[in-house]
């Protein structure tokens, strides 16, 4: 933009050096300067905090990093007694349970968002949207309890006996189903991230100009076609952002997951077998980690989780950047 616009000479005031400008500002309004400094400090506090957290993590993880190196993330034995630590099953469990959650939550959440913006009668929109957002306010331990008392018995005693003859040949449904499992953990995560994805997607879809819809309808598109070919592509940047927001939450969720996932250090592609996540393991073992190496290994695991989160967010940015080369609607909603 600046390249195309000719730069006009500033005729209002003579050029000022930095110091003069500073002086002038002080004269103009002391309050503004204070306000500006305050805001700068606030803005600086966030990256600073991030750096401090990273520094603390590395400092705490250092003994384990020195002893295990990168083998920490490629080995599978977690034995606090022998002092051997490897987090591959935890990394796997974190990503796998989040994947399960996203596979369930994304279509559901998008369906909710599309229904609320495009199809629902006007009087229904606000109440349903409020209810969906209310789900986000439920504490995770409540989801965990609900999972223990309702979801797991339902899955194990009602649904599994019905689908077992049909599905048990699939590798992802291998083995005996005791209840606590990646499936149960992933489903509870799906319910927990659904309101985030649905709420943000709804905002994104609301931001799509009605002219777009009307144009599509005027060209003879059905409502379904208008949504699928015009509205969703227009808002895709924002929707990707919403999904990433949900994914970030799924990766870091602790309490509900640990109550349902079975907490077993094991890599299994079977959804009905127990698994474990990094966040759950840290929460479980931190308080009673007696040896300093055990503690350091837990902090190292925290660092790994931190890196995973950064990678997920960075790839999200990249994805959005890729997607954004085309349309930009809703990118403000991220």
């Amino acid at each position: 933009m600046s390249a195309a616009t000719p730069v006009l000479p500033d005729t209002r005031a003579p050029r000022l050096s930095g110091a003069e400008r500073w002086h002038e500002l002080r004269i103009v309004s002391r309050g503004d300067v204070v306000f500006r400094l305050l805001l700068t400090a606030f803005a600086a506090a966030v990256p600073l905090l991030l750096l401090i957290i990273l520094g603390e993590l590395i400092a705490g993880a250092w003994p384990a990093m020195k002893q295990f190196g990168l083998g920490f993330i490629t080995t599978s034995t977690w034995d606090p007694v022998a002092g051997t630590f490897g987090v591959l099953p935890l990394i796997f469990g974190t990503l796998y349970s989040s994947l399960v959650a996203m596979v369930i939550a994304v279509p559901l959440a998008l369906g909710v968002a599309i229904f609320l913006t495009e199809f629902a009668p006007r009087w229904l929109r606000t109440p349903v949207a409020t209810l969906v957002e209310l789900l986000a306010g439920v504490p995770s331990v409540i989801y965990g309890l609900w999972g223990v008392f309702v979801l797991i018995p339902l899955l194990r005693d009602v649904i599994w006996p019905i689908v077992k003859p049909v599905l048990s040949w699939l590798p992802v449904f291998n083995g005996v189903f005791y209840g606590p499992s990646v499936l149960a953990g992933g489903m509870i995560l799906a319910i927990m991230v659904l309101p985030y994805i649905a709420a943000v997607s709804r905002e994104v879809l609301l931001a799509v100009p009605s002219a777009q819809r009307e144009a599509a309808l005027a060209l003879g598109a059905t409502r379904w076609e208008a949504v699928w070919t015009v509205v969703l592509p227009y808002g895709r940047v924002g929707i990707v952002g919403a999904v990433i927001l949900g994914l970030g939450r799924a990766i870091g969720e602790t309490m509900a997951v640990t109550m349902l996932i079975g907490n077993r250090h094991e890599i299994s592609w079977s959804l009905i077998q127990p698994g474990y996540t990094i966040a759950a393991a840290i929460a479980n073992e931190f308080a009673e980690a007696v040896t300093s190496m055990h503690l350091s290994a837990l902090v190292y695991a925290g660092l790994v989780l931190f890196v995973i989160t950064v990678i997920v967010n960075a790839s999200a940015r990249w994805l959005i950047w890729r997607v954004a080369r085309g349309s930009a609607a809703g990118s403000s909603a991220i």
Partner: protein
Amino acid sequence: MKRTISALSLAATLAVAALHAQEIRLTGAGATFPYPIYSKWVLEYVTVRPNMQINYQSIGSGGGIRQFSDHTVDFGATDGPMSDSAITAINGNVHHIPTVLGAVVPVYEVPGVTAQLKFTPEVLAGIFLGQITKWNDSRIAAANPGVTLPDNDVVVVHRSDGSGTTFIFTDYLAKVSPEWQRRVGKGTAVNWPVGLGGRGNEGVASTVKRTPGSIGYVELVYATQNRIPFGVVRNRAGNFVEASLASTTAAAASAEFPAATDFRVSITDAPGADAYPIASFTWILIPKEISDGVKGRALLEWLWWATHDGQRFANSLGYATLPAPVVTLIEARLKTVTSGGRPILPANFGAGARRR
């Protein structure tokens, strides 16, 4: 006569307390298992000594040992004793003082079985090692004549969070099974050969209750308070013993305390005829040398009270009390604590109040 003397000594204690009347604050941190009794002792001690404030934070045994080692608290508390290397790291400046006892019981949900199941050490080790996989295994059946056991799979449930309960249970398994000792060992968190992890006693109990064919372990106090039926375990003397406060205390009474062990003795698999085999002390950690003599005196007096008068609160809260011989040993130990090289407690401290 005894009562008069003990009343007199109490009066003397009060008088001494009144003499240095400035308020004393003690902080401690550590194990969650004894938290209910410790907070009771803090609360009740106000009636003995009103100007003393004790702040106990139940942050877990690991945190308790760390904070104690870093000198950020006046006393630590732990369910598993400090390791030799951890003690060396603080130049051996620690006494383990046992306060109460806890026991761990096997809980199970076996379809169709209403009788109380009996477990031999071999069966428990076999189940938790993943070698006994069916409830109608001949080894389980041999210990339970007359009980019809189903063909269900055995589902092992263990604690997913690090805990003193796990320490006691694995300490027991390590003693009775050489294979467990070799493959798994003992600790607040171990590398379980099989099973699902439940968070906390309630996590294990609820998973066991809702999973047909499952077996787990919880603290005795949790099982009794929630009326969860539990199995009996065969002790070293060969008797099947049901866990209770009395059989837990019996385990401690039959244990031996070699002088060099600093009370860091495991009382699992104790030899007594009526000793429940999966039991343990929980400890408070205090320094051998306390630089602040006033604080040190207050701490020792509180511990003295807790291991004597304070014991009467234990049973109602679900903890087993210390047996009398152990209390006598603790008295001697408390009197060795020094400040500036001199013993803090007078040699005749508590005379007359010795026998509870």
